[in-house]
């Protein structure tokens, strides 16, 4: 078995990454980690994860393909390999998900040389945590509904408004921020900023509590916040187009640096293990044929996602270049949700138990994962919007809105 398309350097890099990860597995976390970066709540979790991302970055496993001038390692085709190995090694996730999968690619595409040199290094090393300021109360999935305003004043912009759904906002140094700079044109009246957050005058970050009772995402209020024009990304009025770059980067980031480590391939094994320890109608759930069928359905979807990722890189087997990449957000978020829902069903009455209950199966993972799964089916364009996008951009059907 050969790795058909890899260069010798890439093959060598894979070996290096495997070896490094074996030798540098991080110590156990000081407290239980959440399932994804957007649920990081405590300073203890943050410090541990920031430290881990820095180590990976320093080892060349993060920012591998970014130019050296912007803090990267200047390679080609290394990052995907690094991500695969990060996933395989089952190490903790990289905390700076917004910086890695949204801010950095957007700045690389739309930024000035100076912006690239200033902002990208901190995204990669994880030293500067980013958050996203796209969602507003009442604006939902329709980016063009943005009402947070930015008004030019000499070399600055004065920002006023209110963003919600801001994961990691409580730890963020920067925000990618979409504002309204003109009321006359819904789509061409938006402008995109790289906005300072932590400690910046007029910015208030208020944690929102999720349905699980956990925090981890926030409301951010802007009251006469001064943002230098140097922090504007691309032209005035181009905000919508820049935001599309961000969203596409995120949707395509399945195998991007943002998802290194974390859940996914072990989900099915976890379900099987749960079923081995749960009872149903006098037998172990793992021996109940209806439960077995349900678990295998999940396994097939999971393997399908993996193989989609593989097929997306074989042009001869992809009729439309965006057909598989644009499915990623929809399918991955529903895969996780359906897995968690099945776990709740298998756990039966024990799924009633919160994570602090000592009898909770798998330390309460399943009901929490189920509740949290709605974060991913709603955020970054609800899955209803994802289906519109796929129907319109891939299948070419007329626009629904």
């Amino acid at each position, binding site marked *: 078995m050969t790795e058909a398309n890899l260069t010798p350097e890439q093959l060598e890099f894979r070996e290096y990454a495997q070896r490094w990860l074996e030798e540098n597995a991080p110590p156990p976390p000081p407290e239980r980690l959440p399932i994804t970066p957007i649920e990081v709540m405590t300073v203890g979790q943050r410090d541990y994860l920031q430290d881990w991302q820095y180590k990976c970055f320093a080892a060349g496993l993060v920012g591998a393909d970014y130019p050296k001038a912007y803090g990267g390692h200047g390679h080609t085709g290394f990052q995907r390999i690094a991500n695969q190995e990060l996933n395989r090694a089952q190490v903790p996730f990289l905390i700076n998900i917004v910086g890695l999968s949204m801010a950095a690619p957007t700045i690389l595409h739309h930024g000035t040389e100076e912006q690239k040199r200033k902002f990208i290094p901190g995204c990669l090393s994880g030293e500067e945590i980013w958050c996203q300021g796209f969602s507003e109360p009442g604006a*939902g999935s329709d980016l063009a509904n943005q009402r947070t305003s930015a008004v030019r004043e000499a070399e600055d912009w004065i920002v006023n408004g209110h963003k919600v759904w801001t994961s990691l906002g409580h730890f963020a140094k920067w925000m990618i921020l979409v504002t309204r700079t003109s009321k006359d044109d819904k789509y061409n009246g938006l402008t995109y900023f790289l906005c300072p957050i932590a400690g910046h005058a007029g910015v208030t970050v208020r944690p929102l509590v999720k349905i699980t*009772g956990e925090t981890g995402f926030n409301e951010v209020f802007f009251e006469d916040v001064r943002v230098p024009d140097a922090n504007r990304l691309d032209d005035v009025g181009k905000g919508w187009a820049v935001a599309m770059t961000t969203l596409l980067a995120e949707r395509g980031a399945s195998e991007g640096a943002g998802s290194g480590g974390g859940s996914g391939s072990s989900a099915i094994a976890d379900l099987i293990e749960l079923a081995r320890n749960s009872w149903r109608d*006098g037998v172990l759930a793992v021996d109940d044929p209806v439960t077995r069928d349900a678990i295998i359905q999940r396994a097939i979807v999971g393997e399908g996602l993996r193989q989609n990722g593989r097929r997306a890189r074989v042009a001869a087997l992809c009729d439309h270049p965006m057909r598989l990449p644009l499915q990623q957000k929809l399918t991955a978020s529903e895969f996780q949700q359906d897995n968690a829902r099945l776990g709740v069903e298998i756990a*039966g009455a024990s*799924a009633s138990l919160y994570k*602090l209950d000592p*009898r909770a199966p798998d330390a309460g993972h399943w*009901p929490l994962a189920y509740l949290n799964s709605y*974060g991913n089916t709603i955020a970054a364009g609800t*899955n209803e919007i994802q289906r519109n996008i796929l129907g319109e951009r891939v299948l070419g059907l007329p626009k629904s809105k």
Partner: protein
Amino acid sequence: MNTPITAPRDFGFGEDEAMLRDMARKMLSERFSMSRLRELVAASPEPVYDHGHRPSWDEPLWKEIVELGWTGLAVGEAEGGSGVSLAGIAGMVEEAGRHALPSPLVPTLSASLVLRAADSEVARQLLARVAGGATASLAITNERGSWEPGDAPLNATDDGEGLVLQGTARFVQDAFKADLLIASARAGEDLVLCAVERDAAGLSFEADHIHDLTRDQASVVFDGVKIVPGAIISREGASVLRSAWPALLTLVSADLCGASEWLLQATVEYAKERVQFDRPIGFFQAVKHPLVDAMVEIDRARSLLFHAAAEIDAGSAGAEVAARMAKSAASDAAAFISDRAIQLHGGIGFTWEYGLHIYFKRNLHNQALLGDGVHQRKKLADLLIGPVGSSGILNG
């Protein structure tokens, strides 16, 4: 499957039952609004989730409910209750579900239905206590969370003066609100049902740490709890529980139907008001059609619920089939509307503050309680098709 077409066409849900239900609806609408619910159980997640406090409930309101006689609904008139039909009770429990009312109503009604099925002198005395306002709960579930009436969580030994109970009953609903427990214990070949006071010696309660904010749940440890003969409800506990089981399923189904209808209506109202892409989101078929599908599922569950109640009230042989169908349909309808309610509300529905999660979690809890849809359908297959391997042709 073969309900005679001569069953009462109105499910026995006549003017009296409608009046009772409407009074319950009115009272709860006035006294137990959504904002009151949120304030009561979800002002902050910390007390319950981080510090393990039991969720709050409205004890003054409960006192009034007791005075109105709701706890005696399933108690016969001879024991001082109102002897309302299960159809009538189902209508009222739907209202409790619709308001996500934290209360020992369902556990107490469940206990009284088991006592009625026991039909013993001890049971009648206990029913009179319930009619007088005592709350109760069932301690009949074992470590495995089995929903088999014959799987008792406790062991009973005879010490000459009575029985001694040993073991742990799991998943006892609203245990901390119950004045007395009906416990099931294995005694040799028999399964005995015993009444246990909440302050009995040897009894201790370990609060479960649960997601649902509208109830409590406990593991109840019986460490040598003595049962005098006058507290033995039945020595044929398995058949008593089995005969009460359809009614127990029906109560949980009613709660699910009520809460699910609330979620549907709340989401419909939101879809009318919330504007996206210049339209109320209810304009979009991706919102409209799932809500219609949820309505269809809820209506199916609700029709099966009142069918089950009517079958049980009529003492029909089809009661178990009807009740298991109702619970399967209600569990699945609840799962679907809970899911769509959160999803279609978008970001706001994902916040603690908005409160949708209170219903979501109550439903999730009730979906599993007494067995989910898959469990009910397994039982139904045995009833309607016959056990596996019974088809008379040699398999192989």
